[in-house]
């Protein structure tokens, strides 16, 4: 295990932004350049650590439900309160570790956070608070992806909520307060559901405490995945019981709001439209993935019976997301809102892929999470660039930018075509695998969902035509082309999009053994449930 100064690498990657935040807070508020660079340096180091993790990651280890399968594990007792007569022993661990499911998300988080710092370069309004919150947000997101103790997971989940609220609510657009509160209440609503499920799980699961030899309740996610650890007679014990289904649904709603899955999606367009560019990038690039990651990490392995039982409804939700998102996106006239709805559509592919419960589908889903992160980040950066210059996002107000801003348009073409799933760019690979996997599980829903491919092409190309082709309106005659900083943000993403589009194996190798294990768990235990019925 990699360590530095006695702390594990995951602790470093998670809490470095917090350190960065502390440094930012200590700097004078007028020392703007120093604040920006501090954030850049800390997130930059984070990217380096992510690269180290990528290089040191053992592709053969499976993870998911075995402690031994996780890598870079750190586990110490965090909160240990004994002898609450009515509560039992409260035992919460500081338990971090990653496997094939999370490693891509960790890399994505580091990357997007780094890019978001540069996207925030132009922020003028109380810069210090902004970057402090941004770094806190970064830490919260990273924490969600690395924590294996459910309590810790929940804490990070909520920690991330708060800076997001302020980042939208203070630095956002005209209706920022509305958007921020909507985002906050929505996610809070979801996390309350999740909390209920967590508590139910906590009281249902108990493991042997090696120190005392008695059974204690635990928040350990891995322990929760083992059916043998459920106490006889406890609420969630057994297979395919009503309570288990309810817990699954509660967790699912919590995650679905984050994804967001229709009909819990309405916070997303508002949040995106009001949020500053960097926050949109983070929101679409990382935050949405937390929902799907949660389903894969928590819902599926803990409730394989429910996962199998709800496979078809899940797939239908995926289908609705794809088609509905695409159709509504087509009706938008606000560039950012269009991208927001396209996110909904693309996340539908993730849902569809993971609902397939087979290797190709889940691989496609996880890959799509990563690819959507990079592609949508690009799209939002692109919107941000044009908004910074023209101060409007109305699709119908532009035209002919291809001539005015050639370098910008080149990057944009890559992003747009990646988003509409052009082969050779990463979006296609993940979509194709998701669909192929989905087809094996539920062919008609998969076939119906392919309509989304056409619709996506339609609205993307329509947008491209409206903004970049045609003739340039007189008022945009002196829009400057993209500058070095913006290129610096966009080009790495474009390179990743192209590389993974041509050769996705580096990403797929990371996750394949974890995905196979997950599929195995879900299918084996889910099949048991079906036989039991």
């Amino acid at each position, binding site marked *: 295990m990699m360590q530095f100064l006695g702390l594990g690498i995951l602790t470093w990657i998670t809490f470095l932004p917090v350190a960065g935040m502390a440094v930012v807070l200590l700097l004078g508020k007028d020392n703007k350049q120093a604040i920006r660079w501090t954030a850049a340096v800390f997130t930059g180091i984070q990217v380096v650590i992510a690269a180290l993790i990528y290089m040191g990651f053992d592709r053969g280890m499976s993870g998911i439900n075995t402690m031994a399968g996780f890598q870079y594990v750190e586990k110490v007792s965090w909160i240990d309160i004994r002898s609450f007569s009515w509560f039992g022993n409260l035992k919460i661990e500081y338990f971090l570790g990653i496997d094939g499911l999370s490693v891509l998300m960790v890399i994505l988080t580091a990357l997007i956070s780094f890019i978001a710092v540069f996207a925030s370069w132009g922020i003028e309004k109380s810069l210090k608070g902004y970057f402090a919150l941004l770094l806190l947000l970064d830490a919260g997101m990273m924490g969600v992806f690395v924590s294996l103790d459910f309590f810790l997971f929940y804490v990070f989940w909520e920690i991330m909520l708060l800076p997001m609220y302020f980042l939208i609510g203070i630095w956002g657009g005209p209706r920022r*307060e509305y958007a921020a509160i909507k985002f906050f209440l929505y996610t809070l609503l979801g996390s309350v559901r999740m909390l209920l499920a967590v508590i139910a799980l906590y009281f249902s699961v108990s493991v042997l405490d090696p120190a005392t030899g008695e059974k204690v309740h635990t928040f350990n996610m891995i322990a929760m995945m083992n059916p043998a650890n459920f106490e006889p007679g406890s609420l969630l014990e057994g297979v395919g019981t009503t309570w288990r289904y309810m817990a699954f649904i509660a967790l699912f709603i919590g995650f679905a709001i984050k994804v967001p899955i229709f009909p819990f999606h309405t916070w997303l367009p508002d949040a995106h439209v009001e949020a500053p560019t960097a926050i949109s990038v983070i929101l679409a690039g990382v935050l949405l993935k937390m929902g799907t990651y949660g389903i894969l990490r928590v819902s599926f392995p803990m409730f394989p019976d429910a996962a199998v039982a709800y496979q078809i409804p899940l797939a239908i939700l995926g289908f609705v997301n794809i088609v509905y998102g695409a159709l509504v996106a087509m009706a938008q006239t606000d560039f950012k809102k269009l991208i927001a709805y396209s996110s909904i559509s693309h996340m539908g592919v993730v849902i569809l892929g993971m609902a397939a419960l087979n290797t190709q589908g889940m691989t496609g889903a996880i890959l799509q999470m990563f690819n959507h992160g990079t592609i949508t980040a690009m799209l939002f950066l692109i919107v941000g660039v044009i908004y910074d210059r023209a101060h409007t996002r109305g699709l119908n107000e532009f035209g002919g930018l291809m001539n005015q801003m050639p370098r910008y348009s080149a990057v944009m073409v890559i992003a747009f075509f990646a988003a509409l799933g052009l082969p050779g760019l990463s979006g296609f690979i993940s979509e194709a695998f998701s669909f192929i996997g989905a087809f094996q599980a539920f062919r008609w829903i998969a076939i119906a969902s392919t309509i989304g491919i056409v619709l996506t092409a339609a609205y993307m190309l329509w947008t491209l035509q409206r903004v970049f082709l045609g003739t340039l309106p007189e008022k945009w005659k002196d829009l400057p082309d993209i500058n070095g900083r913006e290129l610096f943000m966009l080009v790495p993403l474009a390179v990743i999009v192209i590389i993974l589009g041509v050769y996705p194996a580096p990403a797929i190798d990371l996750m394949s*053994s974890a995905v196979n294990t997950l599929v*195995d768990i879900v299918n084996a235990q889910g099949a048991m449930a079906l036989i039991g019925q």
Partner: protein
Amino acid sequence: MPVIDISLAVLLLPLASFTILIFVGKRLPRGGDWLGLTLLTACLGLSFAVLYQRVGGPLAADVLRFNWVDFGDVPLIGHLQVQLGFAVDNLAAIMMVVVCLVSTLVHLFSIGYMHGDVRYTRYFAYLGIFTFSMLMIVLTDNFFLMYVGWELVGLSSYLLIGHWYEKKSASDAAKKAFIVNRIGDIGMFTGIMILYFTFRTFTFDDIFAMMAAGTVPMGSEAWLTAAGVLIFCGAVGKSAQFPLHVWLPDAMEGPTPVSALIHAATMVAAGVFLVARTFPMMTADALTVIAYVGAVTAFVAATIAIAQNDIKKVLAYSTVSQLGYMVMGLGVGAYTAGFFHLSTHAMFKAGLFLGSGSVIHAMHHAMHETHDHGDPQDVRNMGGMKKVMPVTFLTFLMFTLAISGVPFTSGFLSKDELLAGSLAFGQTTGHYLIPVIGFLVAGLTAFYMFRLVFLTFFGDHAEAGRAEHLRESPASMKIPLIVFAVLSFFVFWSFNPFGSAGSWFADALPRPESVVPATVRAADAAEFAEAMHHAHVPTIVLSLLFAGLGILIAFLTYRKKSINADAVAAKFPGVHRFLLNKWYIDELYDATAVGWTLATTRVLNWIDANIIDGLVNGTASWTRAIVFGYDEHRKDTAISARFFLVTGLVVAVLTAWWAGEWVFSLENVPGGWFGAGVFTMLVGVLTLFFFWSGAGGFDRYVVDGMVNGTAYLSGFFGLLLRKFQSGRVQTYIIFVLMGVMVIFYLIR
């Protein structure tokens, strides 16, 4: 050097051309056009080398396979990998030569044609990526890369059609091409998914081998047919078959050399190539569908071509029609003939387009000099070009003869084989409609092509003052024309001018063995060949008859003027309008598919903003109303408010009903019927009140509430002083207190 290595070089050189030109092209002298041309010429040479090595050798393909993605040890399946690769067989080798040849000559032609264009370098770069992706389709040995190349040619087609994107019509056409193609592509993708479901590989040979061993997709022959038809959907899109042919005529918005390269010779032929590739897995039903789609396309497009006046539009519909021919040929089982026609057609149709390009080029310059703002592509503005552009005229005439199927041309050879195949098909299966359409279209083709020639090159120029400004095109444009014209002679394809049987081409491409189960197999290859052999002579007679008739009518109408075309048109105004407007297919699509989609988007957007979001906001506002009391009447009640009230009413009624049911179901109703009734009413009224109190002006209510909510939450998190919003902090402490109380009583 092994064939496969050379082929890979051929594949990658155009990509190199693209990469270099897109990044540094502008800094190269002459915009780097020479670079593209040089690399493509190299490709051409190498592809000839490949063809030379292959022809006459064994039929088995040269294969290169590699592991692309490894899924590891997949549950229930075992070790699963995605293998991709490239394979060169005779089909690929011939196609490779066709692609490289046309591409090289188009590069050459473009140097003259695109001279001085604003995006000169980018244009050549796009030609490079197109050639690369087209070669990928040709060389791949699996469905996956086929699909990749499929979409990539779509991309390059998009970029090139939209080359002059300042024109709205150009960007519209580009968009339309891509989207219409996508519709076909999802069919193809679904077909690939069906195959992958069972075979877990994308490789053609593996799939065919397993099929030959008796495995059918999803265990049913119907699914096999479905897979075949769905994959053919890809071809329908890309090869502009009815009903997805609408994009190709519009695609003529692109530069004319592009039309020649992509929309006449190569990319649109990719669909035919795909059908040829997947020919072994096509069931009899699938083939019949393919044959009919091809026949209908050929007919529809030929009729439309008659009435068009834009020189490129005529050629575009002619292309659609000829593609329909090829597809029909493959569908009837004349595998060799279908592909043969693809190859010969690539030459003369590319030539026709380049020739029209040459004419348009001349017209454009002449019009520019005479300050005429007419349409340089309209044949009614032309005439008499023969005298000023002899080379163009002669080559154009050669191509026209070839496409009309006049003997001693390549077109005669291939068309004849094709029609013989259709006749044989009619004899063996009884589908006589196919050969009937086939011959009819042969006549129509001869007619509209000669109409074009007469209108463009013969007679006097439409505007006398312009004639002196017309110039023959430069050498870089003439050379490709001459090369194509030469290649339209029969000798390059078969030494026997009246039949291709026994030629190198026919030997190199025997019809592959079908791998589908015998019960759904089309007519046996030997049986079919026999029928075709017998049909050969009648076909020659019939096709010459139809072609001659077509040429004759064209001659009488447009040269001798003994038939007045306008009078004929006036006599059948409905038919003429119908043809002129391309069977109103575009209008039909606009009214149905496009219109409905757009309407749906608007409806869904409204629902999203008002109902789904309204529900959310509504929930927020009645929560607020309950907590704070219904203290403010808002005037601007939005639709959502009304909606919410209606919902509330429904919910109230339902709740009351439910409550009533429950009370009445109790054994001893307290207070009897009266009490139960009151209870029911009370429940209903309370519920309604609940909603009514919430329905007061959502937006302002919510927004207001949000401001306070902000303060609440800030306060909640100890940031009281940070956001001292409107003093309601105290209210929130009340909430906290309430929460504490509630928790206390809950856990007591």
